[in-house]
């Protein structure tokens, strides 16, 4: 077994062993405290790096994509093709005056952006980027995801409320109504996949798609759930056509009207990372996450697909979904607040419930593709 044999690799499908940084730390703990601590440190550095770099990349991408949608070039001046524009803007935001308006609730005003960003970081921890690039995994992963994404609205509500500005308050109230409403549909869509996968653990959900991604294995209900999830989560992260809490042409800047400098940057960063997270979770639940494109039984084909690293699969799927969400933004006008609520409560929610029921039947009778494996 000392000689590497390509034939052997192709013959046997790769088995993905999930090793999160947290589990590595736990495994190392009885032997060496230092090694365990190093793993924890690595996880922290990984999350911070992911946060910063994804933020930079996404903001740059958004500008470039917007530019090309609008028949212009986007940033071109700072660095080749403007790649350092976001860095320059970050520096600008860091050195800008940090402003708390007169009459604002100072404590809440300061705390709110941190709350928004905290929710985002807590979600990044659990996002499975590849079998080895996941900071932590837990048996109640889906519950955690829905709970924490609901927590993000706190930052927006408090930020708008504490600003002592009516526009901010209207924005915050809109955000509260919107995010909490769409949470339900997003959760219902995720539950469909939970039914199929039979687990709440995110890595388990990815591994349950080793025979094929749920979006096509689930016989239609997966597609419906995916569409509901994309719409609902676009609303949850306040992106056009659901950018109602910010609605710059209506509410000046909505809940972050009174924010400047680094605190505004926190809201801004949280918003962009949330887009990455939503795309990442959609990819994880419906498009197999880091799982390569597999068709149950076709071992040869699956082995060829395995040649592309798991992380690359995740990156490709997430990028495609991020592009989709950006495409929405640069094409659609904004919905009105009551139309947005109508879409949720009268359309998405009933469809989501019916779809969940249908999914339960599909699972119960094993009607989906490759139920045996």
């Amino acid at each position, binding site marked *: 077994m000392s000689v590497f044999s390509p034939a052997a690799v192709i013959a046997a499908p790769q088995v993905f062993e999930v090793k999160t940084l947290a589990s590595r730390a736990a495994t190392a703990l009885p032997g060496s405290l230092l090694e365990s601590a190093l793993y924890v440190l690595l996880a922290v550095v990984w999350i911070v790096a992911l946060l910063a770099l994804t933020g930079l990349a996404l903001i740059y991408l958004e500008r470039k994509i917007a530019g090309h949608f609008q*028949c212009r070039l986007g940033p071109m001046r700072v660095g080749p093709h403007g790649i350092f524009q976001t860095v320059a803007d970050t520096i600008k935001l860091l050195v800008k005056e940090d402003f708390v308006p007169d009459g604002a609730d100072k404590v809440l005003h300061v705390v709110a952006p941190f709350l928004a960003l905290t929710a985002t970081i807590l979600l990044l921890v659990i996002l499975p980027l590849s079998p080895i690039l996941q900071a932590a995994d837990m048996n109640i992963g889906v519950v955690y995801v829905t709970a924490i994404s609901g927590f993000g609205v706190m930052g927006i509500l408090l930020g708008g409320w504490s600003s002592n500005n009516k526009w901010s308050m*209207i924005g915050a109230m*809109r955000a509260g109504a919107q995010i909490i409403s769409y949470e339900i549909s997003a959760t219902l869509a995720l539950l469909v996949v939970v039914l199929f996968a039979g687990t709440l653990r995110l890595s388990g959900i990815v591994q349950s798609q080793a025979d094929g991604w749920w979006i096509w294995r689930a016989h239609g209900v997966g597609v419906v759930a995916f569409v509901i999830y994309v719409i609902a989560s676009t609303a949850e992260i306040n992106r056009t*056509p659901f950018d109602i809490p910010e609605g710059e*042409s209506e509410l000046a800047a909505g809940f972050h009207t009174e924010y400047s400098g680094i605190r505004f940057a926190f809201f801004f960063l949280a918003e962009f990372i949330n887009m990455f997270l939503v795309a990442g979770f959609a990819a994880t639940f419906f498009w197999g996450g880091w799982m390569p494109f597999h068709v149950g039984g076709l071992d040869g084909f699956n082995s060829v697909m395995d040649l592309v690293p798991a992380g690359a699969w995740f990156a490709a799927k997430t990028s495609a979904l991020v592009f989709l969400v950006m495409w929405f933004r640069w*094409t659609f*006008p*904004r*919905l*009105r607040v009551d139309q947005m609520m109508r879409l949720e409560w009268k359309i998405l929610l009933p469809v989501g419930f019916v779809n969940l029921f249908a999914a339960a039947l599909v699972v119960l009778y094993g009607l989906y593709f490759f139920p045996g494996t």
Partner: protein
Amino acid sequence: MTVQAYTLDDLVKRLDPQATEGASQQYFLNLGPQHPAAHGVLRVMLFLDGETVVRAIPVLGYIHRGIEKMGESLSTRQFIHLTDRLDYLSALMNNWAVARTVEKAAGIEVSPRAEWIRTIMAELQRLQSHLLWLGVLGMDLGAFTPFLWGFRDREELTYIFEETIGARLTMNYVLPGGVMSDIHPEFAARVKKYVAYIRPKIAEYEALLSGNVILEERLRNIGRLSAEDAVSIGATGPVLRASGVALDLRKASPYGAYDKLEFQVPVGTVGDSWDRYWVRFEEMRQSIAMIEQLLGGIPEGPHMSVKPAVKVKLPEGVHYGQLETARGILGVFIAAAGGSDVPYRIHLRSPTFNNLWSVTRLAPGWRIADLVAILTTLDLVIPDIER
């Protein structure tokens, strides 16, 4: 006549005695003068019940420059410079309105070529103005892309103007008796090229905006202005026509070369935001058709029928002239003392001023987002409101 000064609180109480008593749910909010949807410095006082507008009162005076007063110490020819600053998107039509009034009063003949140039320039500018409006509408409804598309297509027209006129925005081109300079030799060819370019673009906008279900949801049945209300407010232009009143001075009392042109006046049915949107969209098509017809026969002759005189003395009396700008009827009222080229009094009836007041009837009952949609479909240019 007595003029009484009110404080803001008095004004609010006067306008709505119930506004302060027994209405604990209502609150007051200023939209503007610094607000992204105010397109400049429009201020609308809003009484809101949650997000629903109970009352909307426009407040003016933030960009009042006293143009009419300045007109009392300038000759009419000098005054034309200032009219560029009224509705800067119809600068050339404003010039023309004053020039027409002066020509009518002083009996100045205008050569067919000058009329032709004025007409094609006016139609190009109407198209330009509507393109800008289309972009701004998209932005106000939350879609940023149409804004840049509108500006891109407008820019090409600006170059065409610049080539002949030398200015991009404040044109100051039309003078009593003709136009400042003859068209550039390349003008006709460039306009022809532009028409070929813009036709498919209009279809593209149709696909991007008109076909969008969200846009339709945001505009359809929102802010209905009945024909009676429109007439009683004195609304003109696309706002009036969207309410079903087919009054277009280009058709009703043709001036320039409009009587030689074949075109239709698009008219709405219910007067909602969608109708106002659709009327302007259709007007762009009509403008393109008119420009194409105008390109067919350019009359020969001088571009200026009289030697451009600095002093045009108007006979004593009251003179009025009007024409259809991109926003409606611009009326120019000149009271001349006689014997002088400086009028005794100048008053302008600006279309946007009257159109703006329809907000007070349109906004109540709708939400803030609808108010923004209503304001944008009224196509407001604030300097035109205040003068």
